[in-house]
């Protein structure tokens, strides 16, 4: 399971450690439809979630770089060596050391672009609207507050018991976006 599209309860914290502790507590209790939000990167928070994000970005970046380098090198070899072989001062048409430089630049270019495209794909961007934005208090998720959302479809979810569990974890407030 993953980020809840329709959150039933959203607990608000003003401390990242409290959020981290609360996330761990709910995961231990068997909740799976959970997401934690905050205004900065909190080390270990994503790994505390029920399904930590897999490390796919580096792989895509590697593929992009490989593709960029090989195709640029191959293209130059073909263009200079075969298609338009021009004698410039007797230099070899297949001047591979010279071709390394544009090939290297294309490794970096495509690896970087692939990393960003992979980020967009995996981090669910761009997505101008998300149900969690319905919650007015969520404006502060980009400022100074930390939120933990529990999905309505979670099999463990129970309006009273889940709320009671969250209450124990020291939130500032527990929001009910749907009510």
């Amino acid at each position, binding site marked *: 399971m993953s*980020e809840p599209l329709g959150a039933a309860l959203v607990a608000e914290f*003003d401390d*990242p*450690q409290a959020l981290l502790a609360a996330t761990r507590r709910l995961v231990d209790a068997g909740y799976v439809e959970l*997401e*934690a*939000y*905050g*205004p*900065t*990167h*909190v*080390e270990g*928070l*994503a*790994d505390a*979630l029920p399904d*930590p*994000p897999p*490390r796919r*970005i*580096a792989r895509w*970046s590697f593929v992009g*770089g490989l593709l960029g380098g090989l195709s640029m090198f191959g*293209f*130059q070899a073909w*263009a*200079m060596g075969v*298609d*338009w072989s021009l004698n410039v001062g007797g230099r070899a048409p297949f001047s591979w050391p*010279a071709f390394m*430089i*544009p090939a*290297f*630049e*294309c490794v*970096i*270019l495509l*690896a*970087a*672009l692939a*990393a*960003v495209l*992979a*980020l967009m794909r*995996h*981090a*669910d*961007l*761009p*997505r*101008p609207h*998300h149900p969690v934005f319905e919650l007015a208090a*969520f*404006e502060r*998720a*980009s*400022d*100074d*507050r930390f939120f933990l959302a529990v999905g309505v479809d979670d099999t463990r979810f129970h309006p009273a018991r889940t709320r009671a569990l969250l209450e124990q974890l020291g939130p500032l407030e527990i929001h009910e976006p749907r009510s």
Partner: protein
Amino acid sequence: MSVGERMAEITEKIAGHVGDLRRTRSWRVTAALTALGVGLLGVAVIWLFVAGVGIWGVNSPVGWGVAIASFVWWIGIGHAGTLISAILFLCRQPWRNSINRFAEAMTLFAIVCAALYPLLHLGRPQFFYWLLPYPATFGYWPQFRSPLIWDFFAVGTYGTVSLVFWYLGLIPDLATMRDRAAGWRARTWAVFALGWRGSARQWAYHRRSYLLLAGLATPLVVSVHTVVSFDFAVGQVPGWHNTVFPVYFVAGALYSGLAMVLTLVIPARAWFRLHDFIGELHLERLAKLMLAAGMFTAYGYFAELFFDWYSGESSHLAQVHSYLVGPFAPMFWTVIALNVGVLQLLWIPRARREPLALLTISVLVNVGMWLERYMIVITSLERDDFLPSSWGDYTATFWDWATLLGSFGLFVFLMLLFVRYVPMISMAEMRELELEPDAGADAPKEAPT
């Protein structure tokens, strides 16, 4: 103060500067002044398109004038931004969080200014796209054995990757701006924020791709000025044909770039009262980096002269002679005085902490580095041939200077737009410092409470 309260304070202090009305008048005056520079650049470029590259002082044998010297200088300026944003990030130097957004913006705008010159220099700038390998009806390709094409790929990649890296770091801050605004402003910020909601998953992926991009930008930045140095080193011209050039150029690039960071950060800090974020510690560390890069550059001057002398080849010996005691001695010794002499003041701890002293030193280094590029490009070409009968002189024309002045105007104008419309310090990264007590103590961020 709780962590949340300290984070709110960070947001307020940094986001408060975006579109801040209190400083509107001084902003408008400076923006208007630099807009004049942009106008001058526009006129110079239009006249170049109308009349051709002959309006510049370039001719045979000096085919590369102020334009190419300025290209090398501007692209070098950019390097410090990547050093601060990528290399110091990989080295886990949290103090860089206060200045990396600013330095990256400087990099981007320096690349914009730099990229203008070689394109305008093409002779027929309207055909600049011929540099791109596209299947044209002419049936031929760009000459990939030429350093000038390498340059196109290096600078193009550098510009693109710098822009992407900068934007990637900006996304969470754009979300903050979106959430603080209302109405059409909020909708505009929302478009650029791409719907960032700060979920743990988004942060985890964001961090991974940011790290990857930092890792990719590091070899890239070293390659860019190396390729720029190949424009010279691959040629046979005495004063250019030298294996020390790649190292020497990269060191010089970092040196001039760090000087430019200080030149921009010190006034910006005073103008926007950013002393909480950019303290003495930041200035001192930048000064130390500048000192290190400057000493490398000084080694480059020495090595270049030494190897030219050691080669025993008459044209190289003549070059050394003309620098040390000959016709180019005044310029050479000015460069040495500004780039090596003035730099030595930074060994004094007080000079590294005193903003005014540091600003003076960095401005002098900027001037010195520009003169150094002028010296490399132009004096070498004036004596470029092995036959003295082919030597010639170069004088920059009004339009050369107008283009240079205009590019300054463009650069400062873009920086002004940046400080007015974009959070100039990364709020997300400053907040992260609050989570690490050690790092927070390292950076003089918060006042003791």
